[in-house]
């Protein structure tokens, strides 16, 4: 830990020195300084802008500001969250102290949109902002997770695993993939924000519709999340220091309920009785159950030993432990493995065994300051978070240095730079793409037979450890194939994995004339990563890895963006005009990777093992690859006209070219218009004093999208790899390279376009005590790029071309309502309700393609795919047989429509088409993982220095395909490994009032081989995301200790989850948008408790 911190320091020291050298003073003609206060004292973070220009600043922790002033009759605009925006004539003043009036309307803030900032009042598109304080309250490693429930219309499906990305979707799913929003951090687009510490964030803005987002062009079709980091204030001042610290623990809670060892044995006996009842077991005996572990008598007898050498099912009297100790051997190089596994008759809690109470620490120290001609913000941060699953650890060390200097009164230069070192080990499933051109930025998704699912499958009678301190496991026969998940987790202890990110930009701004600013920015993201892993030789399982393997690999990547803009603002009487033009070129991410592996080094001491010390020869393998990234070249313009603060009209047009398309279809032109009418400024509204502000907005635009398109779609390609070679010479250990068609190209592919319309209403009433924003929106995606399934006759190892053939519709309603005020006795409250309704539907696929399927995670153990994507239905819909009950008698089976394998206690499927026969045609849609409504209620109470914050998040109307039931509920799936307590409620001739099918040996169409509605569960839930109690010390106290600010708080997160879902957690993502919502043992979000402190000097 400490060494890695020093490593970070080393790598960044040089950069810091280079960035700081230039904090110096240069000449400037006139400057306005002052202090901004509110009724309660200084207002930090207020925005002060010279009207009609790009020049602006914000106040420091004591409310002080300093702003360069130019022009005749200068007017400054002061805005701050929670206060009324004021416009003031400066006149000849050099100093101006301003008292703000509490307003508390969100409509007054300055929002960072497109390539510029605008006043919230003038926004014509669908734009939402999130206050950084609201983000920070969620102790997550990733800002994405903190966005959950913050913005109406933004769906965040996340999990509890530190360091993984989430499925963030702004206004639905416009495409079949690549639906992640574009993140723009300090003007630099990126698709990964995992390296940004939440404490560095100054503002977060979500651009939801075409009118607001399309200035960012083709990569913005799925919405844009604009993040700016802290920058300091331009004013002569002393250094401000802030510190934010957080410590917490996450409690894994309890796993699902399982059979105890006696119950498992009893139910194995019951399964035999059920087989006899069904007539599938022909003699009346108990032979051969669980490989004889429980004997063969009429009742099962728990053994004392599950395995001793090659004997199993033994009583204590049959085992002389001291004699066995001499034979005990777990190292197969020393001879045959001889394991001694006792029975754990109390039962092992495997979920508990693989989890832990996991600590979290976060420290951020920030330094900000400036002169009249410069400003800076520097922060150092670290976060160390353990996952609740053993050896899943995440740590991040980061340094940020943002600076800006005036070179002259017209030219400013600046940079925002961050370097981060992230170590992330023991991740279950994938983490999502690291950089750039990944079309799949989905959340971490568990894989089949992962360690969490395994903990639900392995028999409780098996102990974690054997009699002599080694591992126990399913080497004891009769319990099928689960690995010892504790052994798996412990084996990860020495694995390494780290990434180093450098992210940022440098820019120059030139005020050619007071109203015209040119800006040039070059930014990018560089990362390099390294990982190594050790694969141990297993001996404790029924299916063992018997070779020690070592893997090592590294990669780097670079994405860059070069942007040049010209921004012109002018006021003519009652008219305001602003025009923005720009050119941008970028590369989404080029890079290379290399790696290798080897087996069986002389010793497995991790200090000895490298690839070079593994067994020489053909078992050493290498791989490498490279990518050139996707390049874009774009020209764009935006114009806004405001008349008399009442009528606002905005037009945007952008022309994008992308290297993903062949030259003939390379460019697309995408326009958007939006307008707003401020009703409250009209005379006829003036006599309604309870209306503080009321605005109608409307927007319409076309956005392009190519996120889902592979970089090489235009080319026909052949490939060669180890897996397509052939040993033509009969050597047994070498292959000749084979070239196979790897891709069929499509030079005709063109931009997807989505037509977005949005009608919104912003209002605030009763002197801003009540405000709301309501949006009705629709997004129709046309020419949707879709990878046509190739008919088998073509040869399906070739990747199919993407063609523009499908369409999709998303529509919904976003609502935000805030009510604030004071209850008697100084108790203030603010309650915010956010809600988003979403309807997603595929509206057409290619002619001749009625649907396409996906297995969803790894549910290939069912004999037909779980997921079907078809016009008329939402993405990733579950498809299968509808269970209308269990057959209760042979008579019922006989009277029912013909169904393969039907028998009492088994599933009875709906005969959807009424033909008297259950066949493929009777399958139907069983649900969709897309929530129909997501929303939250946030409540803040303030009393004197105390504040209480809480947020209740809810996701309604989604379904989950609980595929883990296939493993845990059905005796024959992996005989001996179905141990869910649900089994106790399974059907018996004497217990027919149940939905859990009979526990028996048969695996067929009517038991566990088909996707059916038994697995589909209601995925709705409500979660108390956090409850935080804070106390801010009064300034009287703070002044004595020379603090500006001191707040301490205690917080509990995920305190309560209300759901009917029977799995660990209802928040289920997936590897792709066309196949998610399938639970194979998800990494749960569990309760955590935190304490924190935030102070300023």
């Amino acid at each position, binding site marked *: 830990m400490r060494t890695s911190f020093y490593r970070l320091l080393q790598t960044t020291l040089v950069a810091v020195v280079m960035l700081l050298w230039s904090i110096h003073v240069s000449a400037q003609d006139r400057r306005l300084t002052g202090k901004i206060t509110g009724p309660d004292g200084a207002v930090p973070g207020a925005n002060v802008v010279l009207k009609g220009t790009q020049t602006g600043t914000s106040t420091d922790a004591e409310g002080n500001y300093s702003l360069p002033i130019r022009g005749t009759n200068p007017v400054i605009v002061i805005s701050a969250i929670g206060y009324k925006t004021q416009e003031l004539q400066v006149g000849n003043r050099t100093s101006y102290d301003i008292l703000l009036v509490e307003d508390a309307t969100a409509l007054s803030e300055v929002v960072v949109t497109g390539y510029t900032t605008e006043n919230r009042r003038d926004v014509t598109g669908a734009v939402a902002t999130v206050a950084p304080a609201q983000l920070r309250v969620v102790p997550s490693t990733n800002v994405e997770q903190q966005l959950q429930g913050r913005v109406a219309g933004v769906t965040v499906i996340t999990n509890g695993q530190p360091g993984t990305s989430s499925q963030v979707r702004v206004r639905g799913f416009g495409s079949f993939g690549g639906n992640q929003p574009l993140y723009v951090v300090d003007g630099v687009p990126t698709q990964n924000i995992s390296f940004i510490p939440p404490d560095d964030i100054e503002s977060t803005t979500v651009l939801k519709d075409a009118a607001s987002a399309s200035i960012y062009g083709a990569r913005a079709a799925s919405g844009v999340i604009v993040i700016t980091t802290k920058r300091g204030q331009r004013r002569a001042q002393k250094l401000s220091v802030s510190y934010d610290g957080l410590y917490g623990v996450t409690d894994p809670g309890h796993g699902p309920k399982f059979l105890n060892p006696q119950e498992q044995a009893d139910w194995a006996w019951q399964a035999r009785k059920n087989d006899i009842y069904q007539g599938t077991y022909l003699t009346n005996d108990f032979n051969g159950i669980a490989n004889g572990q429980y004997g063969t008598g009429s009742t099962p007898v728990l053994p004392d030993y599950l395995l001793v050498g090659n004997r199993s099912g033994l009583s204590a009297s049959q085992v002389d432990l001291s004699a066995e100790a001499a034979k005990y051997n777990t190292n197969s190089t020393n001879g045959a493995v001889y394991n001694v596994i006792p029975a754990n008759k109390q039962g092992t809690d495997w979920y508990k065994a693989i989890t832990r109470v996991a600590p979290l620490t976060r420290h951020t120290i920030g330094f900000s300051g400036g002169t009249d001609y410069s400003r800076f913000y520097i922060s150092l941060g670290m976060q160390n978070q353990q996952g609740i699953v053993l050896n899943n650890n995440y740590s991040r060390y980061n340094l940020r240095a943002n600076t800006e200097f005036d070179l002259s009164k017209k030219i400013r230069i600046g940079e925002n730079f961050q370097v981060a070192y992230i170590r992330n080990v023991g991740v279950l499933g994938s983490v999502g793409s690291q950089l750039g051109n990944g079309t799949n930025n989905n959340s971490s998704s568990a894989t089949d037979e992962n360690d969490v699912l395994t903990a639900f499958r392995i028999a409780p009678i098996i102990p974690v450890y054997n009699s002599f301190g080694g591992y126990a496991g399913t080497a004891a026969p009769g319990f099928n194939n689960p690995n010892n998940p504790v052994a798996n987790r412990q084996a990860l202890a020495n694995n390494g994995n780290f990434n180093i990110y450098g992210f940022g930009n440098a820019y120059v701004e*030139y005020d050619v004339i007071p109203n015209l600013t040119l800006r040039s920015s070059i930014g990018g993201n560089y990362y390099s990563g390294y990982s190594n892993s050790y694969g141990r030789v297993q001996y404790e399982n*029924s299916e063992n890895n018997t070779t020690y393997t070592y893997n090592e690999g590294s990669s780097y990547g670079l994405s860059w963006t070069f942007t040049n803009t010209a921004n012109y603002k002018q006021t003519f009487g009652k008219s305001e005009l602003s025009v923005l033009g720009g050119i941008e070129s970028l590369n989404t991410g080029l890079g290379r990777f290399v790696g290798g592996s080897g087996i069986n080094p002389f010793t497995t001491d991790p200090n000895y093992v490298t690839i070079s010390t593994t067994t020489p020869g053909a078992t050493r393998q290498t791989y490498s690859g490279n990518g050139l990234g996707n390049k874009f070249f774009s020209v764009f313009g935006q114009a806004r006209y405001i008349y008399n603060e009442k009528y606002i009209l905005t037009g945007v047009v952008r022309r994008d070219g992308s290297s993903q398309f062949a*030259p003939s279809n390379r460019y697309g032109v995408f326009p958007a218009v939006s307008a707003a009418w401020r009703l409250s400024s009209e005379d006829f509204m003036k006599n309604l004093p309870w209306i503080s502000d009321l605005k109608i907005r409307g927007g319409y635009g076309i956005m392009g999208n190519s996120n889902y398109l592979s970089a090489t779609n235009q080319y026909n390609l052949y490939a060669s790899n180890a897996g397509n070679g052939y040993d*033509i010479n009969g050597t047994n250990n070498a292959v000749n390279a084979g070239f196979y068609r790897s891709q069929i190209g499509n030079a005709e592919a063109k931009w997807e376009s989505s037509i977005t319309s949005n009608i919104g209403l912003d209002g605030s009433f009763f002197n801003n005590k009540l405000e709301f924003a309501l949006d009705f929106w629709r997004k129709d995606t046309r020419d949707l790029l879709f990878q046509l399934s190739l008919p088998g006759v073509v040869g399906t190892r070739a990747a199919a071309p993407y063609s523009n053939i499908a369409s999709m519709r998303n529509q919904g309603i976003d609502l935000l309502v805030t009510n604030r005020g004071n209850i008697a006795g100084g108790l203030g409250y603010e309650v915010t309700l956010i809600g988003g309704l979403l309807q997603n539907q595929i509206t057409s696929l290619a002619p001749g393609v009625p649907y396409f399927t996906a297995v969803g995670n790894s549910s290939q153990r069912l004999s037909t795919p779980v997921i079907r994507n078809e016009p008329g239905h939402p993405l990733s819909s579950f498809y299968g047989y509808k269970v209308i009950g269990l057959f209760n008698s042979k008579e019922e089976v006989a009277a029912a429509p013909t169904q393969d394998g039907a028998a009492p206690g088994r599933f009875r499927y709906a005969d959807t088409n009424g033909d008297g026969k259950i066949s493929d045609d009777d399958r139907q849609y069983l649900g969709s993982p897309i929530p129909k409504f997501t929303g939250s209620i946030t409540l803040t109470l303030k009393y004197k220095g105390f504040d209480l914050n809480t947020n209740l998040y809810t996701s309604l109307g989604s379904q989950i395909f609980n595929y883990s039931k296939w493993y845990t509920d059905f005796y024959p799936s992996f005989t001996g490994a179905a141990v869910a307590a649900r089994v106790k409620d399974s059907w018996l001739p004497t217990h027919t009032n149940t939905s859990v099918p009979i526990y028996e040996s048969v695996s067929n169409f009517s038991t566990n081989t088909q996707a059916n509605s038994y697995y589909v569960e209601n995925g709705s839930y409500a979660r108390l995301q956090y409850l935080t109690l804070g106390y801010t010390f009064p300034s009287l106290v703070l002044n004595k200790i020379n603090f500006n600010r001191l707040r301490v708080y205690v917080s509990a997160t995920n305190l309560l989850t209300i759901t009917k879902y029977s799995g660990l957690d209802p928040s289920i993502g997936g590897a792709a948008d066309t196949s998610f919502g399938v639970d194979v043992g998800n990494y749960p979000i569990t309760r955590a408790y935190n304490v924190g402190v935030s102070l300023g000097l």
Partner: protein
Amino acid sequence: MKYSLVKGTVATAMLMSVTFACNDKFLDVPATGQLSSTQLTSKAGVEGVLIAAYAQLNGRGYTQTASSYNWMRGSISGGDANKGSNSGDFSAITPYETYQVLATSSEAGGKWNAMYEGISRANATLRTLATAGSDVTADDKKRISGEARFLRAHYYFELKRAFNMVPYVDETVDYGTGIDKVANNVDIWPKIEADFQYAYDNLPATQSAVGRANKWAAASYLAKTYMYEAKYSQAKTLFDLIIASGTTAGGTKYALVANYTDIFNAATETNSESVFAIQAAANTGSSDNANPDLVLNFPYNTGSNGPAGCCGFFAPSFELGNSFRTTAAGLPLLDGSYNTGANQLKTDQGIASSAAFTPDAGPVDPRLDWSVGRRGLPYLDWQNHPGLDWIRDQSFAGPYSPKKFVFYKSQDKTLTDGSSWTDGYSAINYQIIRYADVLLMAAEAEIEVGSLETARTYINQVRTRAANPTYWVKAYAGGNAANYVINTYSTAFASKDAARTAVRFERKLELSGEGHRFFDLVRWGVAATTLNNFLAYESLKLPVAYAGGKFTSGKDEYMPIPQQQIDYQGTSVLKQNPGY
């Protein structure tokens, strides 16, 4: 003001022109790490495309059951073996042992796609060859096109006997040029014959690499095609030539190897009996080269005492075990009485490994213990098979383990791929056609159109090899592992029918577990009778595994055309097979 506006405009324009210099060329980004077809026209390029066509023989990239080995369709559907493992694991195979296959079966789809992938690679070879550069000589062209057409014929042969009516696409159609409009309304046997004939006419007898198809492999496969078409006299003519002059690609005269197990041993598999094989190789950087289709077919939970440890699939059937029973004279029980009374092989079904068990002591064909792993007998060089402890779920899978295509302990991690989750990725070749198969087919052809006596000679050649006691399975303590009694047919067959019965049973014994049985039964027109008899017997032993099993004549001879393909190509192009 005016001046500054001009200045601003100029500056802006300059800035823009800087970035506009990034013209269209900027957006031309080539593919990395992959090739265009025009880069493959050199000799090495064309050869590489051909290699990829060979690579698809094992069905890689698709399901384990898609291989040309046909362990599921040929052997499990044929009654050689049951699915094994436990009821739920890979349950998509179960319908193939109970003949309850649905049109949506993933395994039917996998076989279809894997074989058409092979065809597309063979066609790509022919297309690339047509544009080949000057370094490809006329002889090269003859050979490469011969191999490509041999492989194409092989893949179509696989499709023909699996699905019967399939669309025939050659190198003249491709994606975007009508490939998906070719209907499955024409019998493709003549096309298969034509490709094998071309290969026979153009391929050399000796090849530079032992894995290549040669003239005699093409001849053998053409003769096999004739057998499937019941063109016995054409087959016989070819078989006579092959038996007289046929050689392997390495130039060795075709002959049976002395030791039957050499055929299934990676160290000895390239021998005089290898007519055409899937060449497997281990530790090559990808387990796809090392029998990815066979990894499930090992005993279960063996620990380090047995091979691979996973996953208990492909368990030889009770009925197959019984079939190896011989009379005291060392001949099989051709009347079917091996399934009755004491003739049945004694097994350890229902007996724990810790309980005592004495293996069957009656007379058996020595090929039993080369083919079937059974309790108490040496399992290659590993140890005595412990019975139940190596069986995943005996009530579902029965008492046996597969034994052919299992590697030796002495070969673990040298002839198996050590880098993967199981050691079951091995370098053992599967012989698509081996010489014993040729001899037995030749015997059949003789019976139908030639001489019963010649047929008897061929059958006896096969039996004689098995009768060499040097190579019989020995107990670790020494001595034969079981009571092996085998003899040749010493007298002339009584009738054509008797000869047929003998040769067909000989195929069952000699080629058990090698993916032939089901196709033979269909070819002989006896599938319904034989398999329903099989089900009647086996379902008493393994009622769960065979629940609901019934072979329907006129339907179950062929797999369904995959529903997904019909959905893609339309019902006017692809007609479903009868009964589905």
